[in-house]
């Protein structure tokens, strides 16, 4: 049947395959225009002087001769490694608790653990000041150390990166083969030994992949170090200092290139590991079910709920901050900060813009990214195009937001660029946000599509059904849970993103996430906290709707999944 359909499509270079080619080209064009060209425009700056003349690697030479700049490399590595250690360590234990123990309240814990993703990065920064600042009610816990510096950076980053690591490790630990554990048990192997020889090797790829994702997120993050980092400079804040403080775009580009290196490196290693992962899971594996063990279960319950408690404490502190008059000197409660008097035309307008952006990105982004992933996974032919598209889809994760934002100005605002009309519209914000968060959505799509039997396409083709009918009637509905995941991920990130869009918004496209930054800068801390809480609540509502929708869908349209 397969062979037959191949023959047919080969002998008949139909309109259909032409459309498929055009769709692929459109996908490639989107990422070339939305990612490659802007990045190249930016990177070329690193080889130019201020007048725009080509000067080779002179900027890089200057960079490496400036000790304060080079220092930031070590600083960045230090905080990124510390964050990776803290986050992956905790996330591994919590993921183990979820997948390998019978601790109570797993579902509740998973819901609480996901909360940090819903908040803008300024929220933990504000909370950390209230908790551990010189007036903070927990400052004694730091034993005289200042929160403004590496400690604060590591705490703030750990807060928002933790959910990412937990999701990855939970997935890794879920895939286990009960037969191995039964064998170990039958041979009387001690528990610690089983852990070292079966559990760890089984998750090593997931674990290493998680290490790199966390490291990349930590080293490219700008929001936390800017607010709470004090004068501890890291690469991401150096870009800010060069570009915003000194308007030295060339040196900013140099730092961006250097910032790309560790991210690209970890990305390559991660790809390499992912490729070897494929052979890991055998089709005959039997899922392992934990059996109750009171002591172990209680230890993990205690651990997981301590983590959840910390998360709630940080979020609760921000809510508290938004409700009191003037911290720490006037602690009476008020709702006044939610009127956003520090904003020119009210903060609610910015909030509404953010909603528009988030819905647009979620709608357009989900369709585009999933369709592209489908073209890559489920088409035959045009191999170079499909591989090129896949490579570009993997790239955005390594690009810091601020670099992407500036790159957009340089590229889209060029006088001769035919896409110039996009500049300073909502469209460019949508495109930028879509590209910025492309990678994770792409990976989710690919994973979902890999689970689908290729026979669907083959049968569709042999029945002479055009590919878009197969896509819209079968592939899309069947993959609905993954598609919903992607749209929520895009929505939440569009609500909270700052670093790229701060260079691109316009008078009628001001965003809530940028407003948090402005309010904080202008000394309206409580209003800044209020806006951060508002963004958090909006994302929370959407996330809850998503949970309900997924539940309903799984019960109805996706009943086959439950049966199998």
């Amino acid at each position, binding site marked *: 049947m397969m062979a037959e359909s191949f023959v047919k499509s080969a002998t008949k270079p139909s309109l259909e395959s032409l459309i498929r080619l055009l769709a692929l080209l459109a996908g490639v064009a989107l990422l070339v225009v939305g990612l490659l060209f802007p990045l190249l425009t930016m990177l070329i700056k690193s080889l130019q002087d201020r007048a725009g003349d080509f000067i080779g690697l002179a900027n890089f030479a200057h960079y490496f001769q400036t000790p304060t700049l080079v220092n930031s490399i070590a600083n960045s590595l230090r905080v990124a490694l510390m964050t990776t250690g803290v986050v992956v360590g905790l996330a591994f234990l919590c993921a183990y608790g979820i997948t390998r123990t019978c601790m109570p309240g797993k579902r509740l814990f998973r819901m609480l653990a996901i909360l940090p993703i819903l908040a803008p990065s300024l929220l933990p920064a504000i909370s950390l000041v209230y908790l551990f600042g010189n*007036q903070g009610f927990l400052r004694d816990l730091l034993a005289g150390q200042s929160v403004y510096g590496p400690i604060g950076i590591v705490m703030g980053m750990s807060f928002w990166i933790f959910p990412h690591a937990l999701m990855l490790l939970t997935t890794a630990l879920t895939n286990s083969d009960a037969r191995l554990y039964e064998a170990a048990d039958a041979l009387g192997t001690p528990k610690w030994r089983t852990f070292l020889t079966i559990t760890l090797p089984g998750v090593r790829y997931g674990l290493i992949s998680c290490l790199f994702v966390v490291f990349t997120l930590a080293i490219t993050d700008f929001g936390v170090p800017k607010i709470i980092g004090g*004068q501890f*400079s890291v690469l991401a804040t150096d870009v*800010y200092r060069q570009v915003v403080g000194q308007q030295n775009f060339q040196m900013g580009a140099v730092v961006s290139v250097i910032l790309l290196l560790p991210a690209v490196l970890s990305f390559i290693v991660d790809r390499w590991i992912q490729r070897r992962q494929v052979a890991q899971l055998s089709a005959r594996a039997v899922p392992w079910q934990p059996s109750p063990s009171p002591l172990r279960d209680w230890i993990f319950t205690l651990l997981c709920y301590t983590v959840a408690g910390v998360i709630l404490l940080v979020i609760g502190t921000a809510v508290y901050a938004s409700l009191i008059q003037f911290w720490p000197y006037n602690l009476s409660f008020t709702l006044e900060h939610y009127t956003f008097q520090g904003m020119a035309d009210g903060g609610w307008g910015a909030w509404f813009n953010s909603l528009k952006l988030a819905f647009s990105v979620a709608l357009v982004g989900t369709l585009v990214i999933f369709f592209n992933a489908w073209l890559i996974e489920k088409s035959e032919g045009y191999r170079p195009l499909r591989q090129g598209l896949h490579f570009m889809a993997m790239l955005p994760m390594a690009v810091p937001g601020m670099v992407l934002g500036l790159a957009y100005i340089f590229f889209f605002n060029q006088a001769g660029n035919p896409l110039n009309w996009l500049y300073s519209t909502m469209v460019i914000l949508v495109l930028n946000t879509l590209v910025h968060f492309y990678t994770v959505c792409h990976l989710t799509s690919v994973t979902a599509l890999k689970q689908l039997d290729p026979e669907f396409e083959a049968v569709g083709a042999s029945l002479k059904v055009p590919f878009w009918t197969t896509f819209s009637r079968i592939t899309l509905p069947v993959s609905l849970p993954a598609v919903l995941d992607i749209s929520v991920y895009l929505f939440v990130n569009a609500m909270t993103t700052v670093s790229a869009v701060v*260079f691109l918004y316009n008078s009628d496209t001001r965003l809530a996430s940028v407003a948090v930054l402005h309010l904080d800068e202008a000394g309206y801390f409580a209003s800044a906290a209020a806006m951060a809480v508002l963004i958090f609540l909006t994302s929370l509502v959407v996330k809850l709707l998503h949970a309900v929708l997924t539940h309903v869908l799984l019960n109805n349209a996706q009943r086959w999944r439950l049966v199998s």
Partner: protein
Amino acid sequence: MMPRRLFPSTLLAGAAVALASNAQATELTVYTAVESDDLQKYAERFSAAHPDIDINWVRDSTGVITARLLAEKDNPQADVIWGLAATSLLVLEEEGMLERYAPAGVENLDPKFVDVAYRDGEDPAWVGMDAWVAAICYNTIEGERQGVPMPTSWEALTQPEFEGHVIMPNPNSSGTGYLDVASWLQLWEEDQGWDYMDRLHSNIARYTHSGSAPCSLAATGETVVGVSFAFRGARLKSQGAPIEVIFPEEGLGWDMEAAAIMAGTDKLEAAKTLMDWAISREANELYNEGYAVVAYPGVAQPIDNYPADITDLMIDADFQWAAVNRERVLAEWQRRYDGKTEQ
């Protein structure tokens, strides 16, 4: 017969004209760093005088707006800049991005507030609005609790009792930070200026990226002393922060907020109208609601939290010097203080 038919049609025509003129209201894109809590007021006052021009604001901090303007140089989006540091406008002028124009009545302004080229008979590239003055924010509650006296001079900040209690903006990240450094170098001889900063450095708890942050941190008791600017201090004080805004006796560095037309704007007439209004007496009265020193002589009324003699304290600032020497001064500052910033 005729008049009766004419009547409704003239009405319609009249309505059409009214609609058309409304639709034709010129839209000006204005880039600004004016505090966002003031922006609404600025727009309302202007449109009361000129309802035929609509302002579309793009507002961000001084650094971000300047970076955006420079990045957009090939294809400027702004028609007018209204409310950006003169030192930033000097950079833009050097890049040839400003349109020279002498707003009607520019001769009425204090010459200090007008581009020096005007004195040489050229049209000015920019005109000032108000002065933006360095100041110290001092938290009275924390000062008493931690035994840190209220400083009255820059020199006082180098005394041992201030060790670890002073925060100032990093001049490499913040325009306010550079304003402080440049003013100390101009106030004293350069050697003495660096010597002062050497001594100050050992008392600094940390350098921040934002110019208003030190004052905000003093307001919430995160530090006792924040080197910042007067406007932010006065605002925070009226929000209920337990701070005193202190104007050191040696003299105050300052920059001005200024306005300019972007070269190449296709709305030159409307831009000129805005510039004419931006230097008017009425506009200066508006600026005076937040700033104690404005460009139009005789307008300024004393305002809350500012001393009456503030103009006497403002140093004879040389913006050209500050602009020309910026790269050199910042490099020297980095060499001296940035290397040892990690604890």
